[in-house]
C-alpha cells in the first residue's frame, strides 16, 4: 500500500471517529427532546433532522461551501474571530460530516428512548431521582442498544460519504483527501489497480459493519424478550 492510501485511510478514520463523537454529544439530547416533547416544534425539527436522508449531499455541500466561504455568514464570523475560512480544511469537513450524518445518529437513539416509554423514568422519580439523575442512571443505560447502533451507523456513513467531502474539502492530500475521494482520484487518473484495492476494502468494511449491526440487533431482541 502506498503512502497516499495510508494517509487517506488514516484521515478517513479520524474524520469518522470525530464525527461520531461530536454527533453522539449533539444527537443524544436532541433525540431525548424529540422523544419526550409535545411541542409544536417537534414535527418541523424532526423533519429538519431527517433532511440529509433525502437530499443529495452535494446540496448540503453547496450551501455549506457558500456559507463558510469568505463571503458567507459563517465565513465572515470565522474570519472576524481570526480563524480564517473553514472551507477546504479538516474542521470544515468535520462540520459537513456532522450535518449530513445527523439523522443516522438521531433516529436510532430517538427510537430507543421512545421504546423505553415513560414508566422507567416515573419509577426513578418515585425512588427520589431528580430528572437529570434519572436520565443518566435509567434512560441512558436502557437506551444503550440505540446509542451503539447510532455510533456504528454514523461511523460507517461518514466513511462512505463522498459528496459533501468533495464539495467542501476539495481533495487536499493529508488534509481533506479521504478514501472515497482517493478512489475517485485514482479512477480519474486511470489507476484502476489502486482503485480496486481501496474499493474492495470499503465493500468489506461496510459488509462487516452491517453484519455487526444485525448481530447486535439479534442480541438486543433476545435480552428484551
Amino acid at each position, binding site marked *: 500500500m502506498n503512502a497516499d492510501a495510508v494517509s487517506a485511510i488514516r484521515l478517513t478514520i479520524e474524520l469518522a471517529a470525530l464525527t461520531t463523537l461530536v454527533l453522539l454529544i449533539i444527537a443524544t439530547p436532541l433525540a431525548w427532546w424529540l422523544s419526550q416533547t409535545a411541542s409544536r416544534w417537534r414535527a418541523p425539527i424532526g423533519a429538519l433532522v431527517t433532511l440529509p436522508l433525502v437530499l443529495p449531499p452535494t446540496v448540503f455541500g453547496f450551501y455549506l461551501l457558500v456559507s463558510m466561504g469568505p463571503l458567507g455568514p459563517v465565513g465572515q464570523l470565522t474570519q472576524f474571530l481570526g480563524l480564517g475560512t473553514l472551507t477546504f480544511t479538516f474542521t470544515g469537513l468535520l462540520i459537513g460530516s456532522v450535518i449530513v450524518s445527523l439523522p443516522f445518529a438521531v433516529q436510532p437513539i430517538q427510537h430507543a428512548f421512545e421504546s423505553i416509554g415513560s*414508566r*422507567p423514568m*416515573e*419509577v*426513578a*422519580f*418515585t*425512588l*427520589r*431521582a*431528580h*430528572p437529570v*439523575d*434519572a436520565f443518566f*442512571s*435509567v434512560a441512558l*443505560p*436502557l437506551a*444503550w442498544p440505540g446509542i451503539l447502533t447510532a455510533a456504528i451507523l454514523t461511523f460507517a456513513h461518514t466513511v462512505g460519504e463522498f459528496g459533501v467531502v468533495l464539495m467542501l474539502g476539495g481533495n487536499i492530500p493529508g488534509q481533506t483527501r479521504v478514501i472515497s475521494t482517493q478512489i475517485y482520484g485514482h479512477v480519474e487518473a486511470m489507476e484502476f489497480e489502486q482503485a480496486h484495492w481501496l474499493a474492495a476494502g470499503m465493500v468489506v468494511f461496510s459488509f462487516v459493519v452491517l453484519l455487526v449491526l444485525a448481530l447486535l440487533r439479534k442480541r438486543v431482541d433476545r*435480552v428484551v424478550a
Partner: protein
Amino acid sequence: MTHEKDFFVRLALDRGAFQLNLDMALPGSGITVLFGPSGSGKTTVLRCVAGLERPGRGLIRLGSEVWQDDSKGVFRPTWKRDIGYVFQEASLFDHLNVRSNLHFGVRRAAKSGAVEALEQAIELLGIDHLMNRQVSGLSGGERQRIAIARALATQPRLLLLDEPLASLDAARRQEILPWLEKMRDELRIPMLYVTHSTDEMARLADHLVVLFNGAVMADGPASEVLSRADSPVMVGEDAGVLLAGTVSRRDEQWQLSEITTAGGSIWVDDAHLGVGRRVRLRVLARDVGIALQSDREQTTRNQLLGIVESIHDDLRPSQFLIRIRCADSIMLARISKKAVSDSAIGIGSEIQVRLQSVAVIA
C-alpha cells in the same frame, strides 16, 4: 391502630370525557383501599398523590407535610415526596440486577437506618435468595415482591400501590397476598391501595373508598361501608360483610375453629390458627339464609339470632338484600322476594341467620 384522619386528598380535574372531583380525609395508618371499576379514576388519584400527574386544582397533605396546595401555589415534584410507589406491572430496571434495583431508592433517599430498612424489606418480602439475580430471569411474582421491597426500603411516609396483583395469575396472586397482609400487620406505614378486585379489597382494607366516575360513592371503615345495603351495586355479586373476630377455641377432632365476633360465635374450617389470633371473616350475602325464629327451635352451629333492620332491592329484580343486626354486628342476606313474602319476614322480625359458608381471609 389509630384512625386519626390526617391524610387529605382534594382533587379537581377536568379532561373533557373524564372528570375527577373528590375530597377525602383518610386515616394516616393502615390500608386504605381505593375500590371501583376501571375508568373510575382510582389510578389517576394515586398518580396525583405521587405528583406524577398534576390536576387542575388540588390539595394533598399528609400530616404536617403539604405536597400540593394550588391555592398557595405549592407543588412538590415526585422525587421530593416521601412515597413508595408500586406500579401495576413490575417495573424493575432491566439494566440493573436485583440488588442494584433495591439500592436505587435507598441510596437516593439517604435516610438514617437505611441498612436496617433494606434488610427488613428483604426479609419481609422473602427475597434474600434473589439478590444477585438478573431481573430478566425472574417470575412475575418475584418481580412484584422486589418492586414492593424496593419501595419499602426507602422508608416512605406513604406507600402507594396501583393494582399490584392485577398483572399476575391467580396462583401468583395468592403467593403475594400474604406478604401484603404481613406488611399491613407489621409496618406502620399507611398504604393507599388501588384495586378492582373484591377479594383483595376484602382481605386488605381497613378503610374503604369506593370510586365511581371520578367521584367518591362511599368512604369509611371497610366493615361499615361493606355492610351498607343501599349500594350493593358497588360490589355486585360479591356483596357481603367483613367481621373481625378472635380464635377462641379449636376442635381438633372435627378440624374446626371457633371464632368469636361481635355478632356471635362462628365455626370455620380449622386453618391452624392459634387461639387468641385475630382474624377477619368474610360472609357473602348469597351464603346467608334466614328463617323466622319460631320455625326451628334448636340452634345449631353457625346460626345467629338477629333482627331485620331494613330490606332493599337487589341487583336482580327477584331478590331482596336484607340488612340484619346480629348483636353488635351487621349481616347482609340475599334472599328471593318470594321466600321473604312466604315466610312473612318484615322489618323488625326476629330471625335466625344461617351462615352457609364463611371465609377466613386473614
